[in-house]
Each structure stands twice: as C-alpha cells, then as structure tokens.
C-alpha cells in the first residue's frame, strides 16, 4: 500500500483484479514477443541461408536446424566470381566523398546562415527549406543530357564525378537546415567575445563552432553516409560504367540474373548490410539523433 502526495491511498487490488492484471501483462509480453519475432526472423533467416551450402538450401528450409551445415563458400563465390569485392570497393569510393563533401559545404553555409550578416539571409534560408522537397527526379534528365549540350565532351557518368556531385547537391538542403538549426543554438556570447578579440569568421568557424558541434556534425555525417551507402536510384542514373557499379546495383543485377540462387543473393545482401549494421550498433545514438533531428519537435 502506498500513500501518495495529496493523501490519496492506493487501494489494494482484489484477487480477481490481480488475475486480470497478470493476464494483461501476459498479453503484453506475448504480443511484444511476437512483434520482436516478426521483425527479427526474416533477417535471421537470410543470414542463416547465407552460410548454408547451395544443395542444402534447395533441399530444406533454413529453419531445419537439425541438418545445419555451415560454410563460407557462398561469400567466397559472391565476392570473387560475382565481383562483389569490386562492388564493395566501389560503394566505398562513392560513399566517402559523397559524405565528406556535403559535410564541409553544409557546415560552411550553415555558419553563414547562423552567424554572418548579409542581405536576404532569411529569404535565402527559406529557399533552402523549400528545396528540401524538390524530388531528385527533376535533376536526372538535365544533368545527363542538358549538361552535355552546355559543355561538349563532358561525361559525368563515366566516372564517379556525376554521382559525387549529385549526392552532394541533393544533400545540401537538409544538411544546411540541420546544421544551421544546431549552430544557431550556440551561445552568442561565445562568438561575440571571439569577434571582439579580433577573430576572423574562418577562425571562429574552425576553432569554436565546428569543435563544439561535433555531435550534430557526426549525426548528420552518419545519416548521409548510410543514405549514400544504401542508395540504388542515384547509382542507376549517374553511374553508367559497369566496372564502377556499387553493391546495390550489383545485387540488383544478381537478382535479375540468378533470381533463385539464394546462396548468392543471401550472401550478397549481407555484404551490403554489414557496414550499416555495424554503424547502427556502434553509433546508434548518433544515428537515431540524425534521423530524429529533422523530424521531431
């Protein structure tokens, strides 16, 4: 029995009430367990499959744990024979610059929008907010064809140039928005004091704003990195050289060529998932922050 503020006495539950409460608790635990299973089993099933020999996969389901033989042969085959090793490297080549470029450019612009004075600053920022909603599809055709008209001989899609620039440009509205909203919460006194001491904007940016904003910058960086790592659409449009395809495209090709070769597909899918999963489990806090920052009030 507990006596709470206000002198209200908590009534001791009757035996019948206690049974109802216990039943309720059981219902809660069972339904939560079911939810956990539904969200875990498909991925685990594919993981188990990626380690089973091809003949086993065709003979029995992955849930046949009494006949479990494990092998890494599928991974060896998909990495070497199916070129997934090269695709993995290509994904890294695409993702790293496509993360670092927007990070730098967004941080600079966000600083200008937060701590510099120039005409139409707030109007320009509203335009950035508006650009958040422009779908990437509007850029496909002009970037592929119109640019060639303007600059003859320009082949942005032969190498990585096209996809780096496209990913960077389309990351800017969100990145500027996110970082600006963080920078603006920094104490004005800190920046004002530096200015009075004669510090330049470049110095304030490098020595004050960036160091104290590491959590926000990291959250945004992780978000952008995973976004690019997992992207298929931009790679379909902006990477035309087959030797430069990232993993998402390699798996999509695998699927259209060997739609029922689950030993290859499962291993391929896990190679694509492994980095995001490591990032998720090791940097969960930043990752969730990055996602939340834009969408929660």
């Amino acid at each position: 029995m507990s006596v709470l503020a206000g002198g209200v006495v908590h009534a001791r539950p009757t035996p019948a009430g206690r049974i109802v409460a216990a039943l309720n608790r059981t219902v809660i635990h069972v339904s939560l367990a079911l939810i956990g299973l539904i969200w875990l089993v498909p991925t685990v099933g594919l993981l188990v499959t990626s380690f089973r020999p091809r003949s086993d996969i065709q003979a029995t389901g992955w849930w046949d744990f009494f006949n479990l033989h494990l092998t890494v042969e599928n991974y060896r085959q998909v990495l070497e024979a199916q070129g997934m090793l090269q695709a993995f490297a290509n994904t890294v080549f695409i993702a790293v610059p496509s993360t670092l470029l927007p990070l730098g450019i967004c941080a600079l612009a966000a600083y200008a929008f937060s701590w510099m004075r120039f005409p139409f600053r707030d109007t320009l920022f509203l335009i950035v907010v508006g650009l958040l909603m422009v779908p990437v599809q509007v850029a496909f055709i002009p970037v592929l064809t119109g640019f060639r008209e303007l600059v003859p001989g320009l082949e942005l899609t032969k190498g990585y140039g096209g996809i780096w620039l496209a990913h960077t440009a389309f990351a800017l509205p969100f990145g500027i928005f996110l970082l600006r909203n963080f920078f603006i919460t920094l104490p004005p006194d800190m920046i004002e004091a530096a200015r009075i001491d004669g510090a330049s904007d470049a110095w304030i940016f490098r020595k004050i704003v960036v160091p104290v904003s590491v959590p926000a910058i990291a959250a945004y960086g992780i978000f952008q990195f995973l976004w690019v790592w997992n992207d298929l659409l931009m790679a379909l449009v902006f990477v035309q050289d087959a030797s430069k395809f990232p993993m998402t495209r390699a798996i999509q090709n695998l699927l259209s060529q060997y739609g029922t070769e689950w030993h290859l597909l499962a291993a391929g899918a896990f190679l694509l998932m492994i980095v995001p999963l490591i990032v998720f489990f090791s940097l969960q806090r930043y990752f969730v922050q990055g996602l939340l920052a834009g969408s929660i009030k």
Partner: protein
Amino acid sequence: MGLAPTPVAPTTRYPARADLTAARRARGPESPRWGTTLLFLAPAVLLLLVFLIYPALYTILLSFNRGRNGIFEQWVGLDNYTRLFADPDFLDLSTFPPSGALWNNVLWIVFYVSIVIFLGLVIAVVAARVRYESVLKAIVFIPMSIAATALAVIWKFVYSPDANIGLINALLGAVGVAPVSWLGDPGLVNFALIAVGIWGSVGFATIILSAAVKSIPAEVVESARVEGATERQIFFRMILPMVSLPMSVLAVTLVVNVIKLFDLIYVMTRGGPGKSSQVIAFTMFQQAFEAGQYGYGSAVAVVMLVLLIPILIFNVRRFRTSSVT
C-alpha cells in the same frame, strides 16, 4: 536507407523568444565582410544552382517539349500531360478498384502511412511498460539502417512460393494451404509490397513517437492513474494529444516517402507482374531511361514535384512562423 524516411519537415526546436532576440542581436558583425561571406556560401549556392534549381527549371520546360534525347527539339504544349493522364498505366479510374501507378501511390499512402503510425504508436506506448523496451526498439529499428535493396532480397526470400525457401508459404503449407504467389498475383502484389514498406518503417515511427510519449512526465500519468483515470482515458486524453504534433510531422514525412518510393519496387517486382505494382517514381525512371521518352518522363517528374509542393509550402510556412514567434 532505402525506406528510411528522409527527415523532411523543419521541426527542430527553436530557441525561446528571449534567446532568439539575443541571437539576432549578436548574429554577425555590424559591417559585413563580403569576401568571407561569399567564401562560406559560394560552394553551396553554386551546387544548388547547377544541380537543383537549373535542372528543375529545365525539367519543367522539357515537359512541354517532345524532348527526345533529353534536348529541346519540338514544343508540344500540354501533350505530354494529356497523354500521361489518359494512360491507364498511370491512372485508370474507369475500373473498380481504380488502377495505375498514381493509384498505387494512393494505396501506399492509405495503408502504409496509417499502419506505420498505428503500429509505431502501439509499440511505443506498450513497450514503455516493459523492462526490455530498448532491446525491442532496437530490433524494430534495425530495418531502418539497411538498404531497400537488401530489404527487397530479404522479403523476396520470405515471400518465395517455394515452400523450402519462403517462410510464409512453409507456414501455410504446414496447415495445408497451397502456396501463394505473393508477388506474382496482381491483386496481392501491392499489399505484399506495402507490408514490406511497413516492416521497414515502423522502427522510425516507434522512435519518434516513443520520444514524444516519454516527454509526458511520469508523475503526471501516475497521478492521473491514482485519481482513478482508466488506461483508456490516459491514452486518449493524455498521450494522444501529446503525440499529435509529432504524429502529423511523421505522417507528412511518410507521405513524402511514398511519393519518392522507388528502390523497393524496382528491386522486388520491377513494377510487375505486368504493370500492376508500378508507382509514380518508377514510371518516371522507366519512361525516361528505359523507353527514352524524356519529355514524357519530365512530365512525370513535374507531377511528383507538384504533389510535393503543398508540403513544401507547409514546411516554409511552419518554419517562418516558428522562427518569428
């Protein structure tokens, strides 16, 4: 993240009025240093102009042109649009239920958005009462970190009609039901895909709504309970009003997600069987890059842009009011 909603709505907390005016006063030296300002802004402005604003205008113009090869050759007025809306593969309202790519987006909005929010809220509220809450939330959140391409492989596997591969058909087989071709039946395919979308996004909704539910002080809920409020009353009178704002932002984010939906469809069904699971972003890609109809494809891209404009205005308005007050 293929399905991870791009956080779209400008909703970060803003400093209270006093803080903001203080910030206003101190933001920037009295005499602007033009060179420096330009250096800070130039890379962003240049890239936005070259890769977003110029292309958007180009695409809008191209949608009024025949646009073969993606260049301006012959103006056709509204032809691309009249053809698009007359195309039963894009929108066919003459049958019941209607069909076409745009209709499939409507199906997604109705079922995906509502079920994701519902499940997200249920898990957020119910899980808050058990000790393994963080583990459960992490499990539900895992699909958020992986690519839509991987999600597609996982679920093609689960949906496989081969009862030695596909878990669902194996379970059905165990109770004597014949295998169902989830992705091969035009009547089922959209719902099978929407289910995958829901599976991929509930974690996001849970995290957002859970944060909102947690923002209600525990003592307030506890004292309501002590005063004799039923669980139902607590949910409808206390929790729901508190989460309604994040919920509306979440709904907007998910709708945007649906309009941009592409990777999952492309990898799982390629819009098939036939054209039964196409969505608008898929149509744009296919018309422009597989059929080579750039003018027509531009018209589809412009339809996407137009669908997003109300949300764009909503965001800008919301942002303007929240930064003024």
